[in-house]
């Protein structure tokens, strides 16, 4: 018998690569200004004279595409690991309130008039605090009870959402900046922001991959993980810290984009299994491709009007979430 997971992983990597290439190609070609394919080819080769087309492709379209992929990777990775920590397939940072925690910090940094980078750091502190509160209430007894997790998620998100709404009211004319955070928007992409996202993403990926076998052990439950030599409490705290880091940076620069951390890890797990050595890279890549796809729809469906990307992901994600919630009651997989 052949390992089905390995075979599907091979197939999935081909599909993802093709999808990524097609989406990038479509992404650089499409937009309100027509840029000829010749110019794009020249830009991608690194040649060609300076012109408007080149500026559009290099300065606007490409960073946005790259940022969509990076944010998608971060959301998907954070969901994958959070689901192992909580041992619950519904533990997506967006649903359980960690993202709302990050928004609160970013909004605070915005009010203090701090530069971009601080949105991420402030978001990190508040996301981390939120994650620990959620874990303390809903994650203590090994496997998190789905109802408890969702109730805590609703409560935390509502509370923090109220703070953000108050901030919007307070902000007056500037309130659109906060609205963007609550709905998700990739239009603010720049190479600087790509760089700011890349650092936490690389750090987190390396950390998760390093601990992949320990994260696998968490799937067995606290006692069994302990019996395999894992210091469970310490590992979970550290993983939550790193999850908060990537969630907060993705939220700080692209706002709250829901359901990616829920749909993508779940679908990938069904295809290639829960072993994190394989799951993490595939979940990351799939998350990147999925968000790029969602952003393409957001930009082009009602062009020139742009749909907030959080609306697009929620459109796909919410029905899936419902499906999972029903299934999880009967024993969904992590």
């Amino acid at each position, binding site marked *: *018998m052949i390992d089905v997971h390995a075979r599907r992983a091979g197939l999935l990597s081909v599909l993802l690569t093709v999808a990524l290439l097609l989406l990038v190609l479509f992404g650089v070609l499409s937009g309100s200004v027509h840029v000829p394919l010749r110019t794009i080819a020249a830009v991608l080769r690194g040649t060609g004279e300076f012109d408007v087309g080149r500026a559009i492709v290099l300065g606007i379209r490409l960073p946005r595409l790259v940022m969509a992929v990076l944010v998608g990777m971060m959301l998907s990775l954070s969901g994958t690991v959070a689901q192992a920590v909580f041992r619950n397939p519904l533990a997506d940072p967006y649903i359980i309130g960690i993202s709302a925690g990050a928004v609160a910090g970013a909004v605070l940094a915005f009010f203090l008039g701090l530069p971009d980078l601080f949105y991420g750091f402030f978001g990190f502190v508040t996301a981390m605090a939120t994650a620990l509160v959620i874990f303390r209430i809903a994650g203590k007894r090994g496997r998190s009870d789905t109802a408890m997790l969702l109730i805590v998620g609703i409560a935390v998100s509502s509370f923090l959402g109220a703070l953000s709404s108050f901030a919007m009211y307070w902000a007056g004319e500037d309130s659109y900046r906060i609205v963007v955070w609550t709905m998700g928007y990739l239009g603010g992409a720049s190479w600087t922001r790509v760089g700011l996202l890349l650092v936490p993403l690389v750090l987190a990926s390396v950390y998760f991959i390093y601990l992949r076998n320990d994260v696998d052990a968490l799937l067995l439950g606290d006692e069994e993980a302990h019996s*395999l*030599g894992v210091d469970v409490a310490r590992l979970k705290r550290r993983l939550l810290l790193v999850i908060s880091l990537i969630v907060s940076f993705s939220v700080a620069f692209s706002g709250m984009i829901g359901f990616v951390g829920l749909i993508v890890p779940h679908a990938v797990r069904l295809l290639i299994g*829960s*072993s994190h050595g394989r799951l993490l890279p595939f979940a990351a890549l799939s998350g990147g491709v999925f968000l790029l796809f969602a952003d393409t729809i957001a930009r082009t469906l009602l062009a020139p009007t742009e749909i907030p990307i959080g609306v697009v992901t929620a459109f796909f994600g919410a029905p899936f979430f419902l499906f999972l919630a029903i299934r999880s009651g009967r024993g969904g997989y992590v």
Partner: protein
Amino acid sequence: MNVSVENLVFSYRSDPILNGVDINVGRGEIVGLLGPNGSGKSTLIKNVLGFLKPNSGRVTFSNVGENATLSAGDIARLVAFVPQLTTLRATITVFEAVLMGRLPHITDRWGGYGTEDREKALAVIESIGLSHLMHREVPTLSGGEMQKVIIARCLVQESNVLLLDEATSGLDINHAVEIMEILRGKADDQGKCILTVLHDINLAAQFCDRLFLLKGGTVYRSGPPDAVLTRDVVRDVYGIDAIVMFDADGTPIVVPRRSAAGIGIKEAAGV
């Protein structure tokens, strides 16, 4: 290797669970922990495992030391643990689940499991008779198969001590006997020292060298099954009337008798 538990006291908040328990398990021995629900059996196992920390008393592994001084990783190389039958809902294959038993032996976290680890996992899968299921996802297995996977994982762990918490509960009788036979073989051939919580008194009588009967957080009786399992002891510990017979080998067989109210039967079945 032997394990000794000395004067162990443990309480959850202010509820005392274990009140000074002394137990020892020698090399090549299977020791059964019996007692009604709530008598502290599982709590004792978790204390030996180091998952729970006792209020006082100590757990010592000969030649190595007290478990309080050891890290989770150190203990995992000495002690493996088989929980009660649970439905593992992670989509991992049988091979991946068994390979996890090598986790305490990974020295290089970057490299992960090495060739030697994989070969050991394959050998145990073969010896337990799981080869045909190797690439199956664990959640699709039956209860008996799933429990054999967990046993295989513990054997791959290559620890000298095995702790089992009602590992055969919820299994049908042939799988329960099969699992106990595997354990008996490991104790006899490899000198493993095995401490197991059991609900089935007769299974315990057949496979264990010694039994410890717990009642109210203390050891009520201990010794070889034929010395411990008397009608009086069964009544005192479980609160039921039972007939104790002996088979041809002198192994006791305990048959609960229905009391007037019918309560006895329920109690013996662990309801």
